[in-house]
């Protein structure tokens, strides 16, 4: 009976998780094609350093330290989850114990210490949020994002608590055969129950933990906590070029080549008969797929916004909001496709309905946000692609920028000086 329940539950949890992953993958690949797979050994090194090694997390030492507690705890405690899984399939309890002997208790005690670390770190993170750390505020954080953060932290604490309850009950039941370190400190309550009751408590805690894990698994991909998986591919695909380099628009290149080639026939048909792609980005599908992966990876930590010069001086721009808006719009587009098919248009777009022109106009392309992001997200790529759409497709630019561009074209400088005077400074005496 309990094996059947276990198998059905696991199958459902894994099915829904896999379904969600397939949908996220499809959404990401709605983005503009771009091949990113060169220099793969550097990419593995980058992923190892930044995601596995948490190199950018520790730039903020307090957050970095407690996050590593959660991170290491989570990864290693999963070894215990493996046992829980096998127990479930075989209707055993603590199936590894007989094979490992005394070492089993050491191992479980170690996991318990990690679990304690996770609890402490989660409480610190909760305190930090409720204590009003500035970078967790901002208009983009109202409503779900703040609730989401609290839910995950509280659920983690409860899951770890369930482990301690199970361990303490089992320890008592084993009559001295097992000793688990942390639950031994917390086992006073086991005196109050009969062995049969403890049996039920242990069993319930086991199920609770299991259901909790499955619920967690299926909540994560809808939450900023998706970063626990996405951090890895996102740092692998993260740019290896100097941050100052903006990508080259190949579609513009062929056009400019033709304009500059004296032999080209201006009336010739375009070289390819593929439909002309939109220049720049108006909606999520115009962005590079990597920008869309960035959006799913964002942890909403606000490190980017806290160092953004525009945001710090009261402008509307917040790089975190750029990322969250991109993800929210992409989710909306994905839902539209699920419900109405690929061709459906809802008349909305990322630029306009989510991100305003004023926001993207405020960016100085200073790359502070890029430098700050612990998971190698690049908000500037999105901002520049949106600016390109405004400029190239809608000619919607501030008057001063219009003059600047005209001056560059006519005089070779953003100011209105004659190009022939460019070398004059070198002749002037003085």
């Amino acid at each position: 009976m309990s094996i059947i329940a276990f198998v059905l539950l696991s199958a459902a949890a894994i099915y829904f998780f896999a379904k969600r992953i397939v949908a996220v993958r499809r959404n990401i690949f709605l983005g503009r094609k771009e091949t990113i797979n060169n220099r793969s050994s550097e990419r593995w090194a980058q992923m190892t350093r930044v995601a596995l090694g948490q190199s950018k997390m520790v730039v903020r030492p307090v957050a970095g330290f407690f996050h590593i507690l959660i991170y290491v705890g989570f990864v290693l405690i999963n070894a215990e989850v493996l046992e829980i899984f096998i127990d479930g399939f075989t209707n055993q309890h603590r199936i590894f114990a007989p094979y490992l002997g005394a070492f089993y208790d050491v191992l479980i005690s170690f996991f318990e210490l990690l679990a304690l670390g996770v609890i402490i770190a989660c409480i610190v993170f909760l305190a930090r949020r409720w204590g009003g750390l500035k970078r967790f505020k901002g208009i983009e954080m109202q409503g779900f994002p703040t609730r989401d953060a609290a839910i995950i932290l509280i659920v983690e604490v409860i899951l770890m608590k369930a482990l301690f309850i199970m361990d303490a009950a089992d320890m008592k039941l084993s009559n001295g055969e097992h000793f688990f370190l942390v639950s031994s400190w917390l086992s006073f309550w086991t005196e109050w129950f009969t062995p049969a009751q403890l049996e039920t408590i242990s069993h319930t805690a086991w199920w609770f933990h299991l259901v909790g894990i499955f619920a967690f698994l299926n909540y994560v991909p809808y939450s900023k906590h998706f970063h626990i998986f996405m951090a890895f591919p996102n740092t692998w695909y993260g740019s290896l070029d100097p941050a100052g380099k903006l990508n080259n628009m190949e579609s513009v290149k062929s056009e400019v080549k033709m304009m500059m080639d004296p032999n080209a026939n201006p009336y010739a048909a375009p070289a390819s008969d593929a439909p002309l792609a939109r220049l720049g980005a108006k909606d999520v599908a115009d962005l590079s797929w990597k920008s869309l992966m960035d959006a799913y990876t964002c942890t909403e930590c606000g490190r980017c916004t806290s160092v953004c010069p525009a945001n710090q001086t009261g402008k509307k721009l917040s790089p975190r909001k750029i990322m969250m808006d991109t993800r929210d719009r992409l989710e909306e587009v994905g839902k539209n496709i699920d419900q109405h098919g690929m061709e459906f248009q809802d008349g909305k777009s990322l630029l306009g309905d989510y991100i305003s022109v004023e926001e993207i106009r405020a960016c100085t392309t200073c790359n502070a946000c890029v430098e700050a992001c612990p998971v190698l997200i690049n908000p500037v790529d999105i901002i520049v692609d949106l600016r390109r759409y405004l400029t190239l497709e809608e000619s919607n630019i501030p008057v001063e920028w219009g003059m600047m561009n005209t001056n560059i074209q006519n005089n070779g400088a953003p100011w209105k000086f004659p190009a022939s005077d460019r070398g004059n400074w070198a002749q002037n005496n003085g």
Partner: protein
Amino acid sequence: MTPNITTMAEMAAKGEKPEILFWVGCAGSFDERAQRVSKAFAQILNDCGISFAILGSEESCTGDPAKRAGDEMTFQMQAMMNIQVLDAYEVKKIVTACPHCFNTLKNEYPDLGGNYEVIHHSTLLQQLINEGRIKLKDGGAFKGKKITFHDSCYLGRANGIYEAPRAVLEALDADLFEMKRAKKNGLCCGAGGAQMFKEAEAGDLEINHERMDDVMEIQPDVVAVACPFCMTMLRDGVKQKEQESTMEVLDLAELVVRQNG
């Protein structure tokens, strides 16, 4: 003193080729304050006996501000024109005192077929000091003066150059103080991304004024910069804080020339 500056065209007429092209940039060519930096840097190249030339009226905007304002068309037209000129003179090596020109020439021209060895003047100055070709006087003009360095985004975060300008400043025998936001964490002056050429969006404060708070904490005699746009922004900030009589904003090249002057 007026440095001796030739153009590529003049050199080519004599059948000569310089070791290095000095890419002056729009600010260095037209902005009066930045022209003084161009002259100081040309002076240093002269003094070190480096054979260099400028393009003069054949140079044109790299297209950086157009690209960052979203006008890729204007950018690419500028880039392709410049690449034609550079390739016609068979230019191999370029030095520039503008981090924006530096970034664009070095990182963005290769995709359009322009491949050159591009260095920023802070790196060249550091090399020349290390090689002993620039000899800085002991007890020169800046001995014991309080200096702080403002990292420009396109030199620092954009291209990872943090040490070269500091090495130059250390060679001056001055006391170098770091602002609370420095190096990777340096705060923008507010000019990048074509902001230089338009009014800022609505907000509480100008970015360069926010930056001045960091400067004021140090109260330096000199704010050293390595970018003509940072120069404009910080000079405006110094004026806004009414510190013109106590603080000077100077480029690295000017500091080197003045130390020995």
